């Protein structure tokens, strides 16, 4: 049975008017985890970074792993919303906001991980005061800040007509909630000219965001590849990081889609067809990821350089063999098997694949960062480092993930998670009329 526009509207706006007990419990649990992380951070701030597992020469640990992972996760929104819009994939429309929300809420935790990693966080402004532009760290600060900023604007602008709709139609919500819609709608009137201009700006920003997404993760990779450390100093690092970012982000979108579908009864909007498109996309990304991992390691193997080979052996058969092979299984074997078999019909299996991909991608970031630091090039003959994360790092990591879930959950409680205005036939006709 075909669902009418009115039924869709009711379906999307009803969750914004009531709070279930399950939602309150979820928020409580996430706040509890975040409080634990905050306490761990205070402990770290007071006692210094010695309470973490980081040491000489392993100066980077879980926090930098989280930084790269969260920035990667953030690429889902830009990929689904901007890049797929550029290539005219209309099926992305109902997923776009769910994906963009992942971007907007994960970038702050990525950038925040850098601040957590600083022993003296009050000195972070020195990056701007004394920064030298030859340093990839400054490129990173610039590009990630710009990405965060642009993502928020892109997300907010595409949300604007729907906030105005909430302001006009949700009159029985608490006063503060209505006031929030009124302020955030910025006086949007829904004039045809406003829609035309909005569409123009969003199209322009789509191109800009697509370029930015490439730059940001390449620059994140440059932080590693511009050094001469074994395992890092390779040109493949930038593209590999970018593919990994889109891969983990797309996996996260599948998980978010399934959760939203279940929680808000969006079966008629997020259909099997959408999961099937994502499945095909993820098959391609799995294969591209495999191509890069083979290219990187085969080149290293043929080079037979002493320091490079030491890291290579540590990953394949040494101290990091378990995380390395778990990563490979999670990023390649399990997802591919699921996508080619059970994932064709079952959304549950797609969720499993999405989760497994993200576990694998988090491990990939760990495998890139930590093994190299245990045997850095300059000190390889002098010292061998070890790294074992402490409870402080795990607590803060858990808090970052809880924070991301919390922001996402709160957003879905107060704002329509599927774009309403982009689905409206009247507005589509109006924009089509303008284009022709």
């Amino acid at each position, binding site marked *: 049975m075909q669902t009418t526009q009115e039924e869709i509207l009711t379906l999307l706006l009803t969750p914004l008017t009531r709070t279930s007990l399950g939602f309150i419990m979820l928020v409580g649990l996430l706040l509890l985890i975040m409080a634990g992380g905050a306490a761990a951070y205070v402990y770290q701030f007071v006692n210094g970074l010695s309470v973490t597992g980081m040491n000489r020469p392993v100066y980077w640990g879980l926090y930098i792993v989280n930084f790269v992972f969260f920035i990667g996760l953030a690429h889902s929104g830009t990929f689904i919303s901007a890049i797929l819009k550029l290539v005219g994939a209309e099926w992305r429309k109902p997923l776009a906001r769910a994906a963009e929300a992942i971007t907007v809420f994960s970038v702050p935790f990525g950038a925040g991980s850098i601040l957590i990693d600083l022993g003296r966080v009050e000195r972070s402004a020195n990056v701007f005061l004394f920064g030298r532009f030859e340093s990839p760290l400054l490129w990173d600060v610039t590009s990630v800040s710009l990405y965060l900023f642009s993502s928020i604007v892109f997300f907010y*602008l595409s949300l604007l007509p729907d906030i105005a709709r909430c302001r006009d139609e949700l009159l029985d919500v608490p006063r503060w909630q209505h006031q929030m819609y009124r302020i955030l709608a910025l006086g949007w009137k829904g004039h045809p000219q406003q829609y035309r201009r909005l569409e123009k700006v969003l199209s322009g920003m789509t191109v800009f965001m697509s370029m930015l997404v490439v730059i940001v993760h390449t620059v994140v990779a440059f932080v590693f590849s511009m050094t001469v450390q074994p395992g890092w100093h390779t040109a493949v690092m930038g593209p590999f990081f970018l593919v990994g970012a889109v891969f983990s982000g797309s996996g996260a979108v599948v998980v978010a889609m399934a959760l939203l579908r279940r929680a808000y009864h969006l079966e008629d909007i997020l259909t099997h067809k959408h999961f099937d498109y994502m499945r095909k996309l993820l098959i391609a990304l799995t294969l591209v990821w495999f191509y890069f991992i083979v290219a990187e390691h085969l080149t290293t193997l043929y080079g037979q350089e002493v320091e490079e080979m030491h890291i290579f052996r540590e990953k394949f058969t040494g101290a990091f063999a378990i995380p390395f092979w778990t990563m490979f299984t999670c990023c390649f074997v399990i997802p591919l098997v699921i996508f080619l078999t059970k994932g064709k019909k079952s959304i549950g299996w797609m969720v499993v694949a999405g989760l497994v991909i993200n576990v694998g991608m988090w491990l990939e970031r760990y495998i890139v960062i930590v093994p190299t630091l245990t045997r850095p090039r300059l000190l390889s003959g002098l010292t061998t480092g070890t790294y074992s994360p402490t409870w402080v790092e795990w607590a803060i990591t858990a808090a970052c993930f809880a924070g991301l879930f919390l922001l996402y959950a709160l957003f879905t409680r107060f704002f329509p998670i599927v774009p309403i205005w982009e689905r409206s036939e009247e507005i589509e006709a109006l924009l089509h009329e303008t284009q022709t």
Partner: protein
Amino acid sequence: MTIPNMFTTPGIGGIIATAVLLCAAATFFGLTYWILCGGREEEPPWERMGWPYKSTDSERRFQNFGR
């Protein structure tokens, strides 16, 4: 100061980064304002101010008299 010096002098990088972010902020602010102004130029000023009726041409001329 030569161009290579600009890249190695402490502080210049921060200025470049700040300039990039401020330019982006100004652009985004301008675009948002432009979107929100859409259609408003078609409205006569008294309607923009929420005047309760639409005036005829003669009334409009009368209201603008002496301005």
